């Protein structure tokens, strides 16, 4: 595997807030075109790690290389150019409530391109059609269901055709049918558009449906404790907690004790 195959390389990352270390010694690589999932229990720092990968926060130490450029060190125009090369879908969708769905998707094009308005509308409509939301183009985000909002957010993240998409909890709070539809969309975009996905989630059905490779974070050790294909980790991980996570088993301490009928 040469450097061209690597979309993202994280080296010795240490992240946290103020002086509290949330994660340390985090190193991994994401290959071009793969669906890469970051998972772990609640509160282990998945979303924090994602926010450092997209440059929202500065890490305490370490490097994040995206498309061969170190995001941590990039400044000014170099950083702006790099930010254009990936899209982000936030957990809540983060659509702007004062704009229509079409205007939301068109916004990155309005800011970063000088295409005429009709062309920008066409791009935005094309993206909305791709996620199955062309009919909702002129609705307000508040009028959409949770699943539709997330799809609209994916369309906005794709507006500039980035090579990498970061998704934070795409299936959280969605019904199984909508969630499966979103998984199918991710697989479709990865296969047909060659987009690299980095997804933060702990929804097991989605992980099995989309993930090429996963890494698992641990709250106790604050490090990365597993890396590989989800099925392989479920069946063969040497770490019992990892197997327990994939098999969706409760911790022994919280398992209900059988009661004797009286």
């Amino acid at each position: 595997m040469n450097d061209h195959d690597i979309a993202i390389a994280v080296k010795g990352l240490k992240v946290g807030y103020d002086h509290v270390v949330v994660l340390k010694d985090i190193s991994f690589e994401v290959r071009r075109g793969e669906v890469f999932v970051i998972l772990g229990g609640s509160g282990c720092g998945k979303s924090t790690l994602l926010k450092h990968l997209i440059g929202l926060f500065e890490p305490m130490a370490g490097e994040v290389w995206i498309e061969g450029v170190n995001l941590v060190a990039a400044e000014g125009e170099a950083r702006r150019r790099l930010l254009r090369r990936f899209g982000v879908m936030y957990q809540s969708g983060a659509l702007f409530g004062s704009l229509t769905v079409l205007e939301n998707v068109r916004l990155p094009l309005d800011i970063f391109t000088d295409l005429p308005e009709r062309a920008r509308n066409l791009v935005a409509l094309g993206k909305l059609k791709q996620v199955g939301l062309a009919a909702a183009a002129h609705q307000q985000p508040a009028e959409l269901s949770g699943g539709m909002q997330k799809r609209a957010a994916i369309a906005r993240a794709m507006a500039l055709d980035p090579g990498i998409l970061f998704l934070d909890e795409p299936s959280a709070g969605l019904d199984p049918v909508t969630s499966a539809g979103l998984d199918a969309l991710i697989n479709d975009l990865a296969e047909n558009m060659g987009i690299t996905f980095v997804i933060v989630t702990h929804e097991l059905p989605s992980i099995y449906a989309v993930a090429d490779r996963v890494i698992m974070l641990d709250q106790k050790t604050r490090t990365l404790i597993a890396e590989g294909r989800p099925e392989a980790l479920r069946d063969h991980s040497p770490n019992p907690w990892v197997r327990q996570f994939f098999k969706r088993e409760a911790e022994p301490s919280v398992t209900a004790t059988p009661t004797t009928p009286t």
Partner: protein
Amino acid sequence: MKPPETTPESAAATAEVRLEAGGRAVVVLRGRLDSLTAMGPWRQVEQRLHGVAVTALEVDAGGIEYCDGSGMALLHCLQMGFLTPGATVTVRGLTPELQRSFDNFSAADYRASVPPPPLRNHIPTDLGRGARAMARDFVEQVRFIGAVAQGLVGTLFRPRLMRWDEVMRVFESAGANALPIVSLISLLVGLVIAFEAAQPLALFGAQIFIADMIGLVMVRELGPMMAAIILAGRSGSAFAAELGTMKVNEELNALQTMGLDPVRFLVVQRVVASVLLTPLLTVYAMFMGVLGGVLVMLGIGFPLVAIYNELVLRLTAGDVLIGTTKGVVFGLIVAAVGCLRGLQTQKGPSAVGASTTRAVVSSILLIIVTDAGFSILLYVLRQ
């Protein structure tokens, strides 16, 4: 349409336009068409075809190396005749992969997504809607006043339910923390009024009456009003935002399902705290305003004892009582309106902001109207 392994963002994209006989035109596109480079060919084509009557346009896309959504939009714009209205357009030479992507979006998709026409204003309908909304708002206000009164009476019988710690928290945030801003505004208002009055009064040698004027104005009118307006801006808005956010987060539903009345649990504390603190805040605002006037008079050269005597002669305990009574009523209005607007918060991202705005606007409006009512009432009582 997989992105290439390297992304030379500034790679050139070109368009060659050939005009042929019989109104025929050929556009040959080459290079990398993406969000950064698609504009160049667009301008080239637009300039060459400007003012030319084209009946048939042929787009040769065989030279396109890479094409993203923006490049596709350029092709669709050409195909839909945006630059050549009425012409028949053919796009050829796309790679099978690009052709599939191109076919995914059609002119029919574009037409289907034309925005609905904006709703026309119909004055009688708008008037009717406005009147109905006002009537509904009035009914809600009356119902709310009843609920607050019921909550207050209920709390009198069961003081344990009062949550005095919450009252103290509001007392501190809305009262003690407001002292610096009340000090500054009241002092400056008193100072400015005295300063502005000093010049015309000097023409009549009546500058000593600045003390009378500032005393009456600050104690009977501006002291209570300024304290109330600051309370509305600082705390009425905060009440609306707090309760509005709680409503959006379904915390109010949670209270109701636990058998707790949101008015008794959240509103009564705020109302009681506001009613208790506004007389204090009002007296403080009166004092600071008068102090501002006194400073100006000292600057003019009047001795402090003369100013004091003039103030004591003019002001009565009744004036202070009227001022503080107004303060109590204004405090009640600010707290009740702030909480009501918070409880009325609708859904949507701008709902809490809208409630906050409505709380401040309604409070200030009601304060001014009530103040006018006080003036009329006091005039009638004096007759």
